[in-house]
């Protein structure tokens, strides 16, 4: 009889464990790290309406593609003061990622890739004196043209690699947190 106690105990323990059904409902998660919206605002230094470039992807990594809007054309030869905002609009109110980028400025950099659209110059810097790119100036091309502007936010780039501090992404490395492309026109 004694020898049967153990298996009986084991089976009893097993059954009692099976009967306690805990509540396993999934928890709703609002992904706070997601960047849904990239907005680039270009204010003409000579005054006038700002030109706003927006890429918005409200389902994050979901199947829907981002919606890209460009509010107007740039004027040839004009100078603009630029600023970028990165938002998570799945939260209410929308959460700005900018503060995080500034806090970890040495680990983030924004790159502007284009050809013939003009010149981008960084006007902000991190604790090491390297650019971040949330603030910049843009000098539009002297003659009318059309092209693609790609704005990329890199996490952990090598800011000391050749050309990176001057805005050349080639040797930057790191991983991409956001990369959006806009078709822009520079007109008379």
């Amino acid at each position: 009889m004694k020898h049967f106690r153990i298996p009986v105990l084991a089976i009893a323990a097993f059954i009692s464990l099976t009967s306690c059904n805990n509540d396993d409902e999934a928890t709703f998660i609002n992904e706070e790290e997601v960047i849904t919206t990239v907005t680039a605002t270009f204010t003409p230094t000579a005054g006038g309406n700002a030109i706003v470039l927006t890429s918005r992807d409200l389902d994050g990594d979901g199947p829907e593609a981002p919606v890209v809007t460009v509010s107007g054309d740039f004027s040839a030869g004009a100078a603009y003061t630029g600023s970028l905002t990165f938002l998570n609009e799945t939260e209410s109110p929308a959460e700005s990622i900018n503060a995080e980028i500034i806090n970890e400025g040495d680990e983030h950099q924004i790159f502007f890739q284009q050809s013939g659209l003009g010149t981008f110059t960084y006007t902000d810097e991190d604790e090491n004196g390297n650019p971040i790119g949330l603030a910049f100036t843009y000098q539009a091309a002297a003659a009318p043209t059309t092209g693609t502007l790609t704005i990329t936010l890199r996490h952990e780039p090598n800011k000391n690699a050749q050309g990176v501090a001057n805005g050349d992404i080639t040797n930057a490395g790191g991983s991409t947190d956001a990369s959006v492309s806009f078709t822009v026109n520079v007109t008379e």
Partner: protein
Amino acid sequence: MKFFRFLLLLLLAGSWCANAQYTLGGSVRTPQNIALDGAHIHIGALHSISAPDGSYEVRNIPGGEQRVVISYIGYKTLDTIIFFHNDVRLNAILKPESLKLEEVVVSERQKAAQSSIQQQRLTTETIEQYSSATLGDALQRLPGVYALRTGTSIVKPVINGLHSSRVPIISNNVRLEDQQWGVEHAPNLDINAAGRISVIKGANALQYGGDAVGGLVVAEPIKVLKDTLFGKSILTFNSNGRGSSLATSLHKGNETGWAYNVGGSLKYMGDREAPDYVISNTGNREANFAGDVRYSAEKYSLTGYYSFYNAAIGIAKASHTGSSADMARAINSGIPGVIEPFTYNIGNPRQEIQHHLAKLEYDRKLDDATLNVQYAFQFNRRKEFDLRRGNFRDVPALDLTLITHSAQINWVKYLGASVIKAGGSASLQDNTASPDTGIQPLIPNYNKTEAGAYTIFSHSFTDSFSAEAGLRYDFAQITASKYYQITRWQNLGYDGEFDNFIRGQQGTQYLTAPEFTYNNISAGIGARQLLGSNYELVANAGLAMRNPNPSELFSDGLHHSNGTIELGDLGLEREKALKLSAGIIKNGEAFAFEATPFVNIINNFIYLQPTGAETTIRGAFPVYNYRQTNAVLTGIDISSTWKPVQNLQYDFAFAWVNGNNTSDDLPLVDMPPVNFSNNIRYNWQWHNLFTELRSEAVLRQERFPNYNFFTDIPQNGELTPVLVDVSTPPAGYHLLHFQSGAQFAVGRSSMAVNLSVYNIFNTSYRDYLNRQRLYTDEPGRNIQLQIKFNY
């Protein structure tokens, strides 16, 4: 003067004779003449362990009557009295145990003549050699077993082309439940805790389950029956990774009464180095423990077992990509994007894993039968850290807790020439994905209930012919709870089809409760025919059914470590596989040979297929959907051992597998390339010294599906499509390894020193089945020094 010298010599010789000490030598073999390595030979306080060729030697034996005990797990112990008046040779033949309690677990492989299941076993020497590495590394030494890697320290066994959920791992008769569906989830098992590791290719071992579409890995701890106490410590130093490991264990055996085993291991490794650069963030740590206490009486025994696996593993930083554009950049540059100076630090990405396994086992000896009842509890915690921003920097991106209770009962009855096995199992599993990660979990919360029953009948028709047949039934039910983005739910075509799973809506997400029930039948038949005394023919047919795993059903979103969007499918059916294999085996001391051709026909084979691309704010990502197809895998495993002269041994192993997606007439992805190895070993009498040269050749995989895609990357300001070549296999490679070692007596103990050089020529190479092959080379030369104490 000369005379005095002679006298002195004579005196010395006299004193030598008075304190005469003798040597016992010989070999330990099975009745089939297969060498048993790692057998324990005890003479009083002296003891020795047999070498891989079965040979052993015990020195310094005092003259007179001595009790000699030779034991090996699963074999009847030889216990005899020898009168020593000169050196003695004893070639021991150990017979498999047939009616012992322990036999419940290990019976089929020893009763070669009665079971048709073919299995390959790792030698104790190989297990010890890989003490500082992983189970997967060691298993790769078996023909037909390849390694699926993520970097250096995450290694999964691939059996005849299949892995992960298709290759269950049985640790101490408990099926490991450690999120084994993931390719980058290595078995949570310390190789040092296993006394014996074997591989069964195919699904015929029905007592372990009915879903082993690929095969099984069976790891068992050391079990000591005789009244002995011995221990072992292995200290390993590695030049590559600049780290070391220590594994130590103590074993107390007893025929009746109390017995115990305790063991632990520590591993500490830094960044691995490829010939041309440091592979940054590839260090790893492990701290493991395993132990058991057993009480045996004449008719029963009771065992409590506990093991703990605790690992932190760095993932090469260069393999982290944020988008397909990053991936294209990383692949096309040919060298890792991140190369930093060597460090022992492990940053992100990394994995932190803990696995607890506790087990209570009761074995009872009945009339011509044995009964085994066991309950096991497993607690698995897996945290995966990624490169994250802000407050999430130190928060894991994936945090899963998997709890499994399992119970089983096994009964074996011996009826003359027949053996009947029957048993049942039941398990309960609870997976919890922590919401604190702030990321939708790849694997949702779920509960799983399983129950199964099997019976296996084997019969020896004649001394040379035996056959076996088995049948198993399994029930499984899985209930999950998961949020789906409504856009994703619609995009996957679930609208209308799985409306009954929807429980509510919050924001832009559905709360769902998918539930699935499965009833599966698996079966196996096999036969074994002896031809003469040395040849055997073995044939097996096995039917296996495997349910889709949680990853295949529920994956939904970006897989950061791959830079791909992976989408599961709630509509997946179970996989059905029929594996046929035939083996011809030649046993013998001078020449042994084994060739096993096989064909595995799989219905509803589940695999990841690229189906397009999706754009997010981070850029474009390729989308992979879990799909089902019909697949056929054919192949052959060959191994041979030849001893042209005493002391010289030549081993050859070859494996080939051809995997086809027959529905689409395409090769299957990630099939191991043709590989073969040649091994030459010479043994000297002096301190069992051996030297070994091993050549390992892996050909290029020429058969692969083209899953390449294009992604837009700004070049000179304009978005230009760039090829992302994720499909083309790397070139073949050839490596040479050297190993040498010797044994020394230290007092009553013995010590062994082994020196190995892996990848002697520091060859740069990449392996098709390493998931990091797109980003970095494999590690280069490694010089390993190993010191082993047996006491």
